[in-house]
């Protein structure tokens, strides 16, 4: 009996230890634990059903979206494709001023034409209104870009009457500077320098008219050039404003302060 009791006590102590470890967690915590487990598994379950298939393959997005974006149909074929059939026009254009102008820039998207040339023929803009999108005078356009004044430039003829859009050189060699440098011409016309010819200050080689960028006209290089008219001792009409070349704006050339095509005095 005594022995038995001792044994019983010993085992009771052992299980008591276990109870101390496990049994002391309060019941409400245990049920909370179960609740959390259920909620977490519910979260994973729902996430599994609501997350798209390929989400997370490459990053925090649906990888399949890349494919669906890439499957968007092309509308512009690209100039290279046009060239394969229209090599005659390509040969003409590549030597011309329009060498950088893409076929579809004017003719519009033409992938349908590459698939079935007879089914869809890309339109060609022939009206006078189209070319001015690029070539009408606009002060914001970069200097040197060929621009015209629509009201004075041969109205109402369509541009393609005189200019081949695939090789748009002027129909004849321009005679006057104003044909290309209209903006400067107009500015100068209302300035004090109106009576001066362009060639008074710029020596333009004849070849400049045919190949403007290859043969550039000269520009004055020194103060003494302006001094030919504006120096105190210059041999020029009396009403021309004079300056002392020796103390006026030393260290500068004249056109750093005075715009020669429109000298101030407003």
């Amino acid at each position, binding site marked *: 009996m005594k022995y038995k009791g001792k044994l019983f006590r010993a085992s009771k102590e052992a299980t008591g230890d276990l109870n101390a470890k496990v049994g002391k967690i309060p019941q409400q915590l245990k049920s909370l634990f179960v609740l959390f487990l259920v909620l977490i598994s519910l979260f*994973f379950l729902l996430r599994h059903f609501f997350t798209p298939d*390929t989400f997370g393959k*490459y990053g925090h997005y649906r*990888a399949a979206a890349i494919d669906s974006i890439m499957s968007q149909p092309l*509308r*512009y074929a690209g100039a290279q494709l046009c060239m394969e059939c229209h090599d005659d026009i390509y040969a003409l254009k590549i030597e011309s001023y329009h060498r950088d102008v893409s076929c*579809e*820039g004017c003719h*519009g998207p033409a992938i349908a034409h590459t698939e079935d040339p007879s089914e869809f023929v890309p339109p060609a803009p022939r009206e006078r209104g189209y070319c001015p999108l690029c070539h009408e005078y606009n002060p*914001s356009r970069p200097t040197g870009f060929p621009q015209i004044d629509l009201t004075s430039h041969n109205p109402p003829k369509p541009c393609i009457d005189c200019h081949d859009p695939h090789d748009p050189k002027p129909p004849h060699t321009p005679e006057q500077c104003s044909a290309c440098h209209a903006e400067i011409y107009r500015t100068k016309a209302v300035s004090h320098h109106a009576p001066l010819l362009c060639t008074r200050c710029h020596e333009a080689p004849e070849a400049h008219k045919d190949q403007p960028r290859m043969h550039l006209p000269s520009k004055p290089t020194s103060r003494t050039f302006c001094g030919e008219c504006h120096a105190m001792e210059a041999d020029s009409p009396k009403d021309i404003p004079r300056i002392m070349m020796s103390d006026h704006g030393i260290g500068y050339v004249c056109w750093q302060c005075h715009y020669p095509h429109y000298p101030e005095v407003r």
Partner: protein
Amino acid sequence: MKKDKKELTRREFLKKCAVSAPAVLLLAEAESIFAKNSPELSDHKEAHYFGMGIQIDKCIGCGRCVNACKLENSVPDEPFYFRTWVERYVVQVDNEVIVESPHGGGEGFPSNISEKGIARTFFVPKLCNHCANPPCVQVCPVGATFSTQDGVVLVDEDYCIGCRYCIQACPYGARYLNPFTKTADKCTFCYHRIKKGSNPACVEVCPTKARIFGEISLRSSPLTRFFRFNKVQVLKPYLNTEPRVYYANLDGEVR
């Protein structure tokens, strides 16, 4: 006593069963997540890193890019939906700046601009900058907008919920809400074109080659030449968005 204990164990056992059932289910599900056959995906791990260069001095403001973009990407015609657009800056002699973009520049710009006298004036083509550090991707609550591995920021049209957070977050105003799909929309660098080796539509039609497209980190790329010959700036560099659209000869007035 012993009987009690036995009963307790049984209860415990049942409880444990109840708990472990969903856990086992969960495990099974987890396995199925990994085992799930994803649809055929093309390999997007090619070593691309796309960027665009824009030469301000070459832009003539003809708006061909704006129209080409609308046609290529079916952007709504209304004059307030643009994936790319052209702005005109007019800095007047008194330093007052006029910025305008009628119809996104798609129909050209009027030639009479300022009565005060112009100090300088130029066009600035704009589009999504495809930032390396994009604020729009950060704010998207569902992961519908993202940067691909080749450096293009895209919108997942099927997954976007149209909450407009990204439209608010973009410091360049490059996004709009597509009125038909009711999802955010923006320039994709014509992702469907560039992955097939073509240029984006705007680059394709630009008559003066003011837009240059290519690989940023490749030595034989038109962009590399662009970087070699130009002083290059990005828009709003102080925001640390690290745009991948680079501007040559950008004026300080451009915002």
